[in-house]
């Protein structure tokens, strides 16, 4: 697997993997992120790590290390992770990766774009829900806003591009689809994803590399969740 390191300004290094698809890269990025986070020798060095699809951006304290020494250390960590991944024969996530099961209510009062997705895909709504809930998604990146997790891959049969013009207000908890990705808006926000339901779950458990499964709930169950939260 090819990668290179690149200085970003004077206080960050971007680790970029170049020759693998996102699904292959995820276990590498996940493992590398964990190792760097827990590296005792980098404890006073690393300020932030932002893992994403093909990259990790590592920002560091310029008073505690010379950049070229950090580059050497990062090379060593990456090589070690790549070797262990190759030995794992196929690129799989470590067994301890968390699977989050999140309830989603697909009731029409909470899913403004589900009907147009049905028209777009020529699939009945029940079938769309069934497909959306039968995939185990991986979290490839978190961003846009706190705890907004980019989950993939959405089954080809229910993919749809985002709205050409973003909606000015998407409700908190809204579950959206944009092409091959699905995500939940942690809070009310403008947004362009096609909204097919709403989750009452708290969304502070995501991490890059975690796995996510949706399970359908009724409007009654949804309201019950909300009341529990309000209590």
């Amino acid at each position, binding site marked *: 697997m090819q990668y290179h390191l690149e200085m970003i*300004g004077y206080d*960050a290094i971007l680790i970029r993997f170049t020759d693998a698809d996102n699904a292959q890269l995820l276990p590498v990025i996940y493992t590398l992120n964990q190792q760097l986070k827990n590296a005792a020798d980098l404890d006073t060095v690393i300020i932030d790590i932002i*893992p*994403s699809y093909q990259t990790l*951006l590592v920002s560091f304290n310029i008073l505690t290390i010379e950049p070229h020494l950090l580059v050497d250390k990062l090379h060593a960590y990456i090589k070690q992770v790549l070797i262990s991944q190759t030995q794992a024969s196929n690129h799989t996530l470590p067994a301890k990766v968390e699977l989050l099961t999140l309830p989603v209510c697909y009731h029409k009062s909470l899913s403004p774009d589900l009907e147009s997705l049905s028209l777009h895909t020529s699939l009945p709504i029940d079938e769309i829900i069934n497909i959306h809930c039968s995939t185990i998604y991986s979290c490839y990146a978190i961003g*846009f*806003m*706190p*705890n907004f997790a980019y989950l993939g891959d959405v089954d080809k049969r229910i993919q749809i591009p985002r709205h050409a013009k973003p909606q000015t207000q998407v409700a908190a908890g809204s579950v959206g689809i944009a092409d091959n990705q699905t995500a939940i808006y942690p809070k009310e926000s403008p947004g362009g994803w096609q909204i097919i339901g709403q989750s009452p779950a708290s969304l502070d458990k995501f991490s890059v590399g975690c796995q996510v499964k949706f399970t359908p709930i009724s409007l009654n169950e949804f309201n019950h969740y909300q009341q529990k939260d309000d209590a």
Partner: protein
Amino acid sequence: MTTTSAFEVIKPGIHSLIQDLGRFGYQHLGITPGGPADLHAYLWANKLLSNSSNMASIEIHYGLMNLKVLVDTRIAICGAEFGVMINNKPAFNWQTHHVKAGDMIQYGGAKTGKCGYLAILGGLQTENNHQSRSTVIRDALSQMTSTPLYAGQCLPIAIQYAKTSTAQSQPEQTVPRHYIPNYATPLTLGLLPCYQWQSLTPKQQQQLLTTRYQISSQANRMGYQLTGNMIADLPTELASEGIALGSVQLPANGLPIILLQDRQTIGGYPKAGVISALDCGKLSQRQQGVDITFRLDNPLISRYKMCALKRFFEF
């Protein structure tokens, strides 16, 4: 820690926030660092009071803030020139001031610059959320850390900093003239080429480095959108990647956006490089319409300057 209210907000001003050095270690969750828009002025305000560099201060954008002082203590005023008055008497910028319970601190509009800092002895003790008191509106981590100052709000400090006899006996401290910047001049930003710089054509690189841009009306703590010659045929959007402070993003319309403290943590638009944290601060003090140009800068020199700053201000 026992706290006491040090200020009552009479008028919040146009946009006044709480800032410490920022919220670090949470960008993997999409939580932006925030922190002072102008690091230089922020650090001096704390330094004048012998505060540690991470103590929370008020960051005042555009001015027009009025505070009532509730305790005897010391403050420092740095940054943009707002013609601050204490009890209707001019209070000099870039220095400390003794204040007493009942005093009124009044900010005018920004004469030069855009944002100023009011630091207080011992720092403000507002809510600490994810290890920072910085206000980041768009992250909505909590009510307190996502809301600008509002009328009637009381701002707490640790009780030992109210009415200390040592505070009263200290002479006023002033920033040496040499370190007081002029925010009214056009600005050349030092570009440290990285990210997708190599994917730009020589012509596009040249265009970025030779165009005289202006600051648009879209300029705030998230980013500064520039106007000027549009760069055509830019590389298309790529897989989202981590965005460093000062990233010079080139969206499809070909007009650079410089991403600042309240930026998104990841994004997929091509980026020509980054500018230094100090240049971000200088940019944040420039108002709409000011001329901005780029020149290539040397990361070694930027790092050296930043190391010197970190050592001097101890952070």
